[in-house]
Structures are given as structure tokens and as C-alpha cells.
């Protein structure tokens, strides 16, 4: 188990991450706040605790890899990268602007710290499988974390990738499912029910855990736990989350998948995030 102080400082970091997400999207007047906020706690735990990375050396071959398969929520990734020092934090305000390293979806050729370009849903997990197989073949100790959305599991390629991860016994691969129950058009249950995702991943052969993705203690604890799993099985963590988490009017509201707040909404959002999340 992580120290309580770790959890407290990560909670504090997560507030900063959320504020940066909102600031970026508000400044750009474009982007995807809902899914960025639902993934914010896990992303904070990864980038400020769990992952073995070196911002001064983004291409370090022994680093842990992170793949944002749900690439549209890149504000949360960019924020973590900026706050960790992969680039000047001032860059965050260039999101989606011409010439920016922070494209509308992550571009590994432009943005340091992005391990693979993403944006087309369903594809990131296969790439993570390739990276994890390479670690096994070359006796590398790094791990590969892949964040996917629950809506994204509607893509068949996700399940192709899980099959391969199980076949190649990738216990160095951690699949993180941000189960916020909403997608672009409506609730997942209305658009295309994804069913019991934990049961599905378990049935495919993953070592699967379910947590509250906004409880930092649970997030830290599950990451700690999965580190010691060497069961020749890929790891899957299904996180129950709330889309738009931390901003009352965004929470569980389909509309906030891909729109930016106006002036008044932005002020309210920052106030609410600063007031803390409990």
C-alpha cells in the first residue's frame, strides 16, 4: 500500500491536472473535457507516481510506455507531460493551435513524451501489445500502460489485441478502462451496450480488477498490487468513473464529451475544482 502522504499529494496534483485541462480547453475553445476529467485521477497516479520515466530523456529505451488509445482526451495527457517537464508548461495554452506541438490528437512526431500517435479509436492497444512483446523478447523490464474508453471497446480491434496479449503472456501490459458510461452520441447503454467489461476482460484471460477510478487510494493501491502480479497474464483495471468529474454541470452530461466551456462556465468550473473533490 502507498503511503497516505503519497495519496494526499496525488489528490492535490489531480486538482492541478483538472485545472490545466479546463484552462487548455477553455483557451482553445475546443477539445474534449468530459473524458479528460474522468481519466484525470489515474493519469495523475501514473505520471506522478507509478511510471518509470525520465522527462529529460523521453526516448529512454527502458522507460515505461503510455498509450492514450482514447486520443481525444489528450488534454489530460498533455497536462501531465507539461507538469512533469517534458516541455514548457506554457505550451499547454497552444492546444489545437497552428504549429503547436499539442495537436488535437496526440502526435508523437511533434510532442515529446507521446509514445505513439493516436486518435482513431480501437488501435492503441495493439500498439501496446507490440511494445510489450518487444520487452519480453529483449528482456526489458519496462511496462506498457494503455488507457482505453468503455465506448472504445465497441471497436473489434480491442478484442483482437486482448487475444494477442493473452497469447503472448504479457504480464507487462496494463490495460486501463475508463468506464464513464458515456460516449459521443449518448450513454453507452443506449448507443451500444458494452456489458460487464470486467467479466469480458476476465473471460479473455486478463488478470482483472475493478476500482473506483476517482478514489486515489484505490487507484494507487491497485497499481501497487498489479506491479507484483507475475502471472503470465495481461492486467486489466476497469475503473468506474464519472465523465466530467469535478465540474458539477459536466458530470454525467453527454454534451460535455467534446465542447469547451464559455467564460462563465469556465470560472465556475475552476472554482469547483479548486474547492476540491470529495
Amino acid at each position, binding site marked *: 500500500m502507498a503511503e497516505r502522504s503519497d495519496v494526499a499529494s496525488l489528490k492535490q496534483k489531480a486538482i492541478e491536472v483538472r485545472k490545466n485541462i479546463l484552462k487548455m480547453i477553455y483557451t482553445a475553445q475546443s477539445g474534449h473535457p468530459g473524458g479528460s476529467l474522468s481519466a484525470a485521477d489515474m493519469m495523475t497516479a501514473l505520471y506522478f507516481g507509478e511510471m518509470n520515466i525520465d522527462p529529460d530523456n523521453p526516448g529512454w*529505451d527502458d522507460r515505461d510506455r503510455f498509450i492514450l488509445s482514447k486520443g481525444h482526451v489528450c488534454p489530460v495527457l498533455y497536462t501531465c507531460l507539461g507538469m512533469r517537464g517534458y516541455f514548457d508548461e506554457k505550451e499547454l495554452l497552444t492546444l489545437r493551435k497552428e504549429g503547436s506541438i499539442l495537436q488535437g490528437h496526440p*502526435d*508523437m*512526431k511533434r510532442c515529446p513524451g507521446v*509514445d*505513439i*500517435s*493516436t*486518435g*482513431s479509436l*480501437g*488501435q*492503441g*492497444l*495493439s*500498439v*501496446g*501489445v*507490440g*511494445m*510489450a*512483446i*518487444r520487452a519480453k*523478447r*529483449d528482456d526489458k523490464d519496462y511496462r506498457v500502460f494503455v488507457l482505453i474508453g468503455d465506448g472504445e471497446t465497441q471497436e*473489434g*480491434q480491442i478484442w*483482437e*489485441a486482448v*487475444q*494477442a496479449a493473452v*497469447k*503472448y503472456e504479457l504480464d507487462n501490459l496494463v490495460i486501463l478502462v475508463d468506464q464513464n458510461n458515456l460516449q459521443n452520441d449518448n450513454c453507452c447503454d443506449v448507443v451500444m451496450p458494452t456489458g460487464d467489461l470486467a467479466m469480458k476482460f476476465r473471460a479473455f484471460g486478463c488478470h482483472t480488477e475493478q476500482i473506483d477510478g476517482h478514489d486515489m487510494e484505490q487507484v494507487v493501491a491497485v497499481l501497487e498490487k498489479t506491479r507484483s502480479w507475475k502471472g503470465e497474464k495481461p492486467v486489466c483495471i476497469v475503473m468506474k468513473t464519472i465523465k466530467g468529474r469535478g465540474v458539477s454541470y459536466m458530470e454525467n452530461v453527454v454534451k460535455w464529451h467534446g465542447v469547451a466551456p464559455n467564460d462563465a462556465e469556465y470560472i465556475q468550473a475552476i472554482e469547483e475544482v479548486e474547492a476540491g473533490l470529495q
Partner: protein
Amino acid sequence: MSNYKMGLPTRDAYGEEILALGHDNPLVYVVDCDVGKSCKTIPFLQELPQQYLNVGISEQNACGIAAGLATCGKIPFVTTYAVFGSMRMLEQIRQEVCYPCLNVKIACSHGGLTPANDGASHQGIEDMGILRTIPNMTVIMGADYWATRKLVRAAAELDGAVYLRFTRDGVPAIYDEAAAFTIGKANLLREGTDVALIANGDVLIVALEAAELLEQEGIHARVLDMHTIKPLDHEAVLAAINDCGGIVTIEDHTIINGLGSAVAEVIAEEGRGKLVRIGINDQFGESAPYHRLLEKNGITAAHAVAAAKRLMKR
């Protein structure tokens, strides 16, 4: 097929060269999609299992896994059939290979009409044109065994995405082991200034036969092997326009967006030159003998001769 002996399928050449490459360079990987037997990669599996993956019938996944390997410095060859390698995994190629400029090769057997008995579902006739439209992609088809071996090696040495296309069935042997190939540079097989025949892949032989028939009538045809349709050898096309005026393109591919279209683009932008495209006439194939499929689309020496003469009269 007068002066040329029947040779091996070019998929055999791929199987042999990828095995040699794998031995020479441990970074070379094969990612199979349950068609390793057909694509001749089983010896690679047997001799180099640490550099081999078979991900089953999941081409999109295969492409993504290859991209992941490439981010770690490997040189993966995703191996499948042309139909799947160009269409089933197309968007994965675009998003995870070409956009991030990763060093992944898509190596495909069953290109064009050579899987003749298999019928339309397995005859990849649109593939080269489709791949040609994606930025950062190189598109190649060797004409015979030696051309394919050399071009597969050249592709492995090129840092970037390459689509390679092979035949299922045997094709005439045109080149020998001494032949040299440069990606993006056409091979001049026959000099001539009356008309130019530009072809590639399994139907390069049609151009050579047509040139011989034309020669019997005193017409000197230039023959170019345009094994790389992207990047196209612009200079060679321009020289053909300048020296010959008329060009006949011959390809085992739909006439839309393949070799003929690439040459047409040069002619149109130059505002000079004349063109007849010979290829698959915007229709699907069917189960039939290979030569019958070619005949049904007019991909024959006789048709090429007639086209060349027509051009010279224009």
C-alpha cells in the same frame, strides 16, 4: 511467353529474402496473420522464432503490433494477402504507421489476378492505388523472382513505410541475380524512341512481348519496369514523353489510381504526351485461369501492340 522461362511465384522470393534478412539483422521481424504458409514465411518461423509472431486472423491488430515493435526499433514485415494488407488494415496503416512515420513494411502475396482460381474476394486489384494515396508510403511490386528478392531487401534498408506486393503464382523470369534495383527508379529494359511501354509486376512480361512484336514491324519500343509506383520515377516518365511521345502503361491492377494513373498525372501536369492505360477495366475478377482473366481485361501483348500503334497515329 516466347523468350522467357516460367519462374517462381514472387511470394517465394519474399519468403527466401525475408529469411535471409532475418538472419542478417535481428531487428527484422515477421508478423503473420495465419497465412504464413501461403506467404512462405514458415521457414522464418522455424529458424527465427524469436523474431516471429503469428497473431492469427486479425490484420488490423497485426498492423498495430508492428507499429508498436517499430517504435522500439524493430523492422517488422506484416505479412498477409494484398486484399487484407491494403484494405482490412488500411486505416491502421494510415494512423499508426504512415502518420507517425514508423518503419513498418506491409508485405502482401496474392496481388493482382494471380490468385486466379480464388476469385474476386482474393484478387487484390485496388491495393497499390489505395496505398499510393497515403502520405509517407512507398509502393512497390517486383516483376519476378530476382526483382522481388532485391526489392524486398531494398525495402528493409529504407527507413519508412513500404507496401510490397507479390504474386501467388509463378511468373516468367526476366531478371537474373546480377540485376540491380533502386526504389523509386525505373529499370530500362529495352531502349526505343517510337513508343514507350511502362509496366510492372507480373505483366512486365506483356510489355516485353509487345516490344518484340513491335520490333518485327520496325517499331522501336522503350520498355520500363516501373516497380515503384510511389515515389514515381518522374524523370523516367518525362524522358519517355520527350523521347517517345506516346506511352502505354500495363498493370495487373485496376486502371484507376495505379501505375497508369500515376503516369497520367505526369502527362496531364506537363501538358504533353499521350497515353493508353492497359489494366483491369474497373471490374472485379472471377474464378478463371489467369490468362483468361488477363484476356478479359485486354492485358495482352496483342492489345498493347494495337494500343502503341494507335498512339503513334494520333
